């Protein structure tokens, strides 16, 4: 009887949809979306005086009207050397007194020709045994902190910007700094290995002998020339480059991971000219606030643009453990580069929108600007400039003959390749199409995303001065950029067109009870969780048993 009733009910249920008239299916409502905490375009902590044109230690420092310019005291010290500036200037930097020694005008032309450079190896966003978050943090975009290693000018004092912050100080960042020297100078580069893995320096394309005068290796390759520079040790490389050009330096120990972790930067050899005090370091690459004599003869400005792509799986390794043996195993024996997929794309150490704070190229009509473009990543870079067709003057640091110079709007560079480009703001429809905010970006579309979210990656802009607002903010007239300055946007939580979309055509769909039930059903426990639960129950029982036993003992 009961069975009969049940089956009847069942059959009725099955046929219910077909016997009742279908109602108009009301789609779920649109939900309000929380935008998240919007970071200011330009943080207030940045000293606006740093942007001004100024003279420090008799070094003229070009204005840098972007939101986050380089510290002018750093620039003055990088031009004069830590041995030729006052203590007061050094104290406005975090440099060590022996970071950069410049002396001996060997050719008598008014500038020092013996240059001693000291580099340390730093880790950013590394593991902390004391807290969930990584430490000595460095954000490439809102909320995005891949682990990095980088070369840095030797510094002093704390790694963090303050005692109550875990943010790295401004010298510790990506990319490894561009290094500039003068042709024919006697250069000594000392690697101070302050990191927990062995490292080396290879001068890629820079004229250097295989051996030093004392017979020690000088090529930085563990397999052929150099012993490993172990943690706590130092090693000096010596070179007197005869040829000029945009070259590279990088670590050559376990190069397939160490280079990609960030141990790579530009090494630029400038023409020998009288009174040519070059800015030895360009921290974070980007705008050169004190260009060499030869560059100033031809160009009004100069920028170093270093592009990198990052595989999250590699960069996260240093956030997964602390033991040096586990780390060595995960880097050298577990990580498999053949499975590499890039997730993040950075220009001068940042992804869009942070590139807008630091990596704008600010220009006036008729200006001629030198761009040194370097692909330090593992993917192809197809750099496209809106509003301009730049001309390549050098490839891999070698000057092109006038007939070999190419003018085009996409320049493709493979890993480790460099191109020196001339960006000419002549409004003739070929060199330039007039004033504006002209984006320049990778046209390999992966490169304009951050973990697959667009817009991100290495997007920046050439901004004409007439389009630059206060605090280095370009006078953009497109969509509201606030969502890009939230963590939620890059966590895929925010519907992209929400602020332009009054009718909420593309808003977030509100959760109905049905979909919530479905979701919670989907989130039912998997086998691991069941095992954990069983384990926890067992543990509870054992604990209770132990407590009981202990209490019984005490009672007895």
């Amino acid at each position: 009887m009961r069975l009969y009733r049940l089956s009847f009910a069942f059959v009725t249920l099955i046929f219910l949809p077909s016997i009742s008239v279908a109602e108009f299916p009301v789609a779920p409502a649109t939900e309000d979306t929380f935008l998240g905490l919007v970071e200011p375009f330009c943080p207030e902590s940045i000293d606006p005086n740093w942007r001004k044109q100024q003279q420090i230690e008799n070094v003229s420092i070009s204005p840098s009207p972007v939101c986050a310019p380089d510290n002018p005291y750093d620039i003055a010290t990088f031009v004069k050397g830590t041995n030729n500036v006052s203590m007061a200037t050094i104290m406005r930097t975090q440099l060590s007194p022996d970071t950069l020694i410049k002396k001996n005008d060997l050719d008598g032309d008014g500038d020092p020709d013996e240059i001693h450079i000291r580099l340390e190896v730093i880790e950013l966003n590394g593991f902390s045994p004391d807290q969930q978050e990584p430490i000595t943090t460095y954000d490439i975009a809102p909320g995005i902190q891949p682990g990095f290693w980088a070369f840095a000018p030797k510094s002093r004092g704390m790694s963090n910007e303050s005692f109550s912050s875990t943010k790295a100080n401004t010298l510790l960042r990506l990319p490894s700094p561009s290094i500039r020297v003068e042709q024919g100078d006697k250069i000594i580069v000392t690697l101070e290995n302050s990191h927990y893995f062995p490292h080396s320096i290879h001068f890629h394309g820079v004229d250097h002998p295989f051996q030093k005068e004392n017979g020690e290796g000088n090529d930085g390759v563990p397999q052929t020339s150099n012993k490993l520079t172990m943690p706590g040790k130092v090693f000096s490389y010596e070179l007197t480059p005869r040829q000029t050009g945009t070259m590279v330096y990088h670590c050559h120990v376990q190069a397939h991971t160490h280079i990609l972790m960030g141990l790579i930067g530009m090494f630029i050899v400038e023409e020998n000219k009288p009174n040519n005090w070059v800015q030895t370091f360009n921290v974070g690459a980007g705008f050169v606030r004190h260009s060499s004599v030869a560059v100033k003869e031809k160009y009004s400005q100069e920028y170093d643009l270093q592009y990198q792509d990052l595989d999250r799986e590699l960069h996260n390794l240093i956030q997964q453990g602390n033991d040096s043996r586990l780390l060595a195993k995960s880097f050298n024996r577990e990580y498999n580069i053949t499975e590499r997929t890039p997730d993040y794309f950075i220009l001068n150490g940042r992804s869009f929108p942070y590139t807008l704070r630091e990596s704008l190229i600010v220009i006036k009509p008729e200006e001629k600007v030198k761009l040194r473009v370097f692909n330090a990543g593992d993917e192809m870079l197809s750099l496209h400039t809106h509003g301009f067709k730049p001309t390549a003057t050098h490839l891999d640091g070698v000057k092109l003959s006038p007939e070999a110079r190419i003018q085009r709007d996409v320049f493709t560079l493979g890993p480790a390749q460099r191109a020196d480009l001339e960006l000419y703001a002549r409004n003739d429809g070929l060199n330039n199409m007039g004033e504006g905010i002209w984006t320049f970006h990778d046209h390999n579309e992966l490169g304009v995303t951050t973990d697959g979210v667009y817009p991100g990656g290495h997007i920046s802009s050439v901004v004409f001065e007439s389009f630059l607002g206060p605090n280095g903010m370009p006078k953009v007239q497109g969509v509201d950029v606030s969502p890009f300055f939230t963590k939620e946007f890059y966590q895929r939580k925010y519907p992209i067109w929400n602020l332009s979309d009054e009718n909420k055509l593309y808003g977030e769909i509100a959760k109905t009870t049905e979909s919530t039930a479905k979701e919670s059903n989907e989130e039912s426990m998997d086998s691991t969780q069941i095992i954990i639960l069983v384990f926890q129950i067992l543990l509870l029982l054992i604990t209770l048993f132990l407590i009981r036993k202990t209490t019984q003992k005490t009672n007895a």
Partner: protein
Amino acid sequence: MPNKKPLKSISTGSLVALGLSVSSLYSGLQAAETAFETKEIPREKHQPGKMEGMACGANMQMDKTEMVCGSNMRMDVTGMVMYENKEKLPKDCKAISEDVTIEVKAGIDHAKPYPGTVFGLSEHQWEVKPCSRITVEFTNEDEIRHQWMIHGLPKYLYPEGMFHIEVNGKGKKTGTFIVPSSNYTYLVHCDIAQHMEKGMKAQLKVGTGRGDLPSIPGISAAKFADSF
């Protein structure tokens, strides 16, 4: 290796609650040492240019001459001593209770007793009486720089609550500071990125101290330990 991310979608409240109750019971039974947490210090901007008592305009000579910038800082190519205090008593001290000398060595060789660490200190804990005057003789045995940096001191005596010795390569520097009267455990470390995490962490207990800090080699466990 520990995965710091929460386990995939363990969302069931009861599951978490059960886990918590189990772990708390378990740790209660073990009578584990109470981890000492430093208070959240309000954020302030570190301004390298604005150091108290700075009065040094002369060109720095790259030799042995030690630049004295006011009373708070000594610096030369071999390193620096910052915010030294040999005389001024903390408000809560009537007199200096005792003079203590700490000899500490830093370098990769001192990491050997603690497998998996890379940079080490010869000692990781010191105990002193309240209101002690402590002289730190800090020897660096590595070719790179290392620091002996202590945090949490009274800010009216020590700018940013810190006393700091940095030795640039092999060598030794000595500096002195005076601790206040209250029982407290101070963090001592090398603040070069990853040197603390890879072994250069220690604690100074004044009086009875206030528990142990986590992840001090040979003394306390890490909050987020490696799994092997």
